[in-house]
């Protein structure tokens, strides 16, 4: 207990001005006693502004846990998860909700759109949840055109194809101009052509808009669109590389598994 208190009061570890999110000595354990599993083991990592990072690793390596803890969806057993200079483990549920709607964006493998809302309403959801915020219509239209869903804005999710649904999810993640977007296997449910289009768009968002994206994936092709790829094994960051090619990634994955 005292250990945790000490950690909460610890000063932020040093970081460059370009760091938007980081984990410091992050450990996440599930269960207790003999059944305890350490999903994240004293991991420290930074994610810099305007960078497209892929988090890779075999199944059960802890890559999703890393993303969930970094984004505040899950709480660390020990260590710190910062978004900007804010330690997310100190935030209340209400504060985390506000952070999710204004500072963070999420894209999931199975889209997770609200069935009762139209595409437009799904996209503007994070902004609408903020009583004070106004939707930037110009930005919304721009996103819709770039993503090719401008004619689908009034449709319900059930009337969209999988690729279209995921593009709506991307627009929803983008609309509040978040500090960082967390994408959890965003191409997992898409065919290769649709995947390629989506990754190209994410790349554009990083290059043109300076968007920071952290993407958990096991797809080497997806990782090859990134600036940086970090490899996780048994909850530990084992390696990382920059401007990876598909072959680099496949080689490294083979090595790890």
């Amino acid at each position: 207990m005292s250990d945790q208190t000490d950690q909460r009061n610890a000063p932020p570890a040093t970081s460059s001005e370009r760091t938007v999110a980081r984990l410091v000595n992050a450990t996440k354990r599930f269960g207790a006693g003999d059944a305890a599993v350490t999903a994240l083991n004293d991991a420290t990592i930074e994610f810099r502004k305007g960078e497209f990072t892929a988090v890779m690793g075999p199944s059960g390596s802890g890559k999703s846990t890393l993303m969930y803890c970094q984004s505040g969806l899950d709480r660390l057993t020990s260590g710190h998860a910062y978004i900007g200079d804010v330690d997310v483990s100190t935030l209340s549920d209400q504060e985390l909700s506000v952070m999710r709607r204004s500072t963070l964006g999420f894209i999931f493998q199975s889209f997770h759109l609200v069935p009762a809302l139209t595409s437009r309403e799904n996209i503007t959801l994070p902004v609408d949840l903020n009583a004070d915020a106004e939707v930037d219509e110009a930005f919304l239209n721009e996103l819709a055109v770039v993503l090719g869903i401008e004619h689908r804005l009034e449709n319900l999710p059930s009337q969209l194809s999988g690729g279209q649904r995921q593009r709506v999810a991307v627009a929803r993640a983008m609309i509040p101009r978040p500090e960082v977007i967390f994408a959890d296997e965003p191409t997992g449910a898409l065919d290769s052509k649709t995947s390629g289009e989506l990754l190209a768009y994410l790349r554009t968002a990083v290059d043109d808009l300076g968007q920071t994206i952290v993407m958990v994936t096991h797809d080497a092709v997806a990782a090859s669109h990134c600036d940086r790829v970090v490899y996780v094994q048994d909850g530990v960051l084992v390696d990382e590389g920059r401007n990876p090619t598909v072959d680099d990634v496949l080689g490294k994955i083979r090595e790890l598994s």
Partner: protein
Amino acid sequence: MIRRTLKLAWFKRNRYALTVVAIALSVAFIVSTLLLTTSISDVGEPLRSAYDNVDVVVTGPEVAGGDGPVQAISAPVPEAVVADLTRAGQMAVGFADPYAQVLTAEGQAGGQDQAAANVAEPWLGGSPLNGFAIVEGATPETVGEAVLDVSTANAASLDVGSTINFVTDLGVQEATLVGLATFGGADNDPYTSTILLSPEHQIFGSGDGFQRVLVADASVADVAAMAPGMEIQSGSDWVQSQQDALNDFLGFFSTFLTVFAVVAVVVGMVIVTNTFTVSLSQRTQELALLRLVGTTRRQLLSQVVLEAVLLGAVGTGIGLLLGLAGVSVLGWFLDVLGLVIERSSETSPTALAIGVIVGLGVTVVASVRPAWKSTEVAPIEALRSSEVDLVDGGGRRRFMTAATLAIGLASLAWGIAQSDILFTGVAIGAIFLALYLGADSLVRVAARMTRPILGRAGPTGTIASRNLEKNAGRTAAAASALMIGIALIGFFTLMAATIGQFIAGDAGEALETDLVVQGIGSQPEPALSDAVLEQIVGVDGVDVLVPLYQTSVSPAGDVEFERAGPGGGSGLGVALTDVEALDAAYTFVLNAGSLDDVGGSSVVIDQATADGFTLSVGDSLTVTSLAGPVDLGIAAIIETSLPGSPQPAIIGDLTLRAALGYGDPATAAYIVGPALASEVNDAIDLPTVEVVSRTDYIDGLSSNLDTILALVYALLAVAVLVALIGIANTVSLAISERVGEIAATRAAGASSRQIFWSLLAEFGLLAIVGIVSGLVFAWIAAASLFNALSGGQIGTPEVDVLTALLIVAAGLGGALIASWFPARSAATTDILDVLRAD
């Protein structure tokens, strides 16, 4: 298959928990009702045992029938009849049933709570006609000795050897309690508190004749020859008629309770059907998968029905236990309301068996249709992520709704125009069915109409509204269940208000008296003797005293008449009074004639009576009274008669008393003047008589109605409770299929509070649809039914806005509480649990 079913049902146990509760409550209600009604049906048994030796019973001819609120009265059997029979060697005893109210040691009117009558009977000793048997102490040998039935002595806490007081028409009497007696083996004569006195007691010497004469060792024919003009029955026939009368009275309660138990079962059935429909829709993939691996439709149907049997069995089991406990609760509640009903403590196996049949039957019947529809799911659905909606929806349902509504409205229009009860009944049934079938459309309309308002609360409000519209087919059943409960509450509230208006409304307002003197409680009415009236006149501040002598007559011959409201039935209430003095205590609105002409056989009637008989001033009406047929001349017609139940149809002068054969003391009196109620009370000094203010008197007139209404509310509360469980169930089921959506909204930044309020708004709105449609239906049903039943004389019922708001608030509050916990648990679900499940 049974193992697999058990396993699947256990896996879904949380989903079914509330359904089991709903079944259990319905079963408990019907079982406790049946147990209660079977336990009260044998109270007439002591009569048969007590009057075992009675061969013939002589009663006087009936003067006024006992249908409706007018009390039945029969002419007395002349004392000469007993004398003649005795002279002829028959063993005959006459009973006058004089009023005798036993007082407690503290001087309060005591006795059994359930006694409808307080009477004195002569102690007949070893005569075979004596229904009583001494179980403690001795027999009453002298006029100063008395015996009480066991119940009365217990209730008044009187011990053998003590001195007791009892109020009679002759004033307060004193006696020594020498013994306790049972009646036919029971602690008392059913619904009667009896004091047994020596036949020499002056209370038996009025000379006014007898209520009945019991004869032993005689034949009906022999007795009939000696008592011309009297009603002669065999002893067993008479006992049977007494038992029937008691059972008629109790049958009302049995029917009453059973009707409400059936309502609870119907509401329960709606909920069980809905639970199965929704839950099976949500399990489309599971069912399709079973089909995919080769399960036949029949096997699937059996599995689902078996699941229902399982649920029904668990619910019924719990319901039976609750029902056994419920009898005491129901009995206690009747006691609290003063509707004390004698009952045995036997548990009827039939009642339990019916409970089992109802519980299992309702669940299985409710599951069959959704189960059958679920087997139509194509195996391919297992490979898709969608679910197939099993709710009957779409065009066919809308057509049925429109058709029943059209039939309902057309019948309603005809029923109102013609005051036709058949068409009105059809209209009410059809409109109800239309509301039930169209509940989903109503919910959709409500969702759309309130969207701008809910939308102001942000996207969670929009989500609430959209979900309500989208899932209307599934959730509307919860609104319907609530509608049934609220409609009945609304209907009975309106009915009570309308009857209350009749009893105390306009007539109550016209009453200008300051005080009213009346007897407390039982029959025969505790009377105000001439001596008492004189004492009242002597009190300071009593300016005018208006004594009322209330009796009843019946129209002679085959006169057809209808009289709306209380005062109807086959008898006519009569109030005999000093009409001139009454003018000071009551504001007459004279429609025709003149009050100056009232006197002798010239009487005042109210407009309802005039309409019923088509009478005008100057006409005459022949009635049968205690003294035989009497011609009454109509001197005046007033808009509204005096308040009372029954409301007197005829008001006559005191001089008419002799003509109608009325020899009893006054039954009530109005006092005009500044006299204090307490002073008048002190002057009378009778515990069986009370002096109340005008307001208390008017309120008291409808107090029986309030009691019945309280009972109705309590019984309907069970139905509403079952409906609220349905709401909680619907919320739980709806939320269980929306975890993904809720997680997505939470991931997009919605706080748990926003999710919580969004869910509450959605289901609150659903409840409002049920409540409002219930109230509107209640009003339509009440208005049209009253119109038809009263032949158009009763207009639209007045709506008490406050009561309506209270019902809405209570219903909505209940629905919100029911939604609270499932909504809360959904709002605080860990987002990751859902995301990881993908």
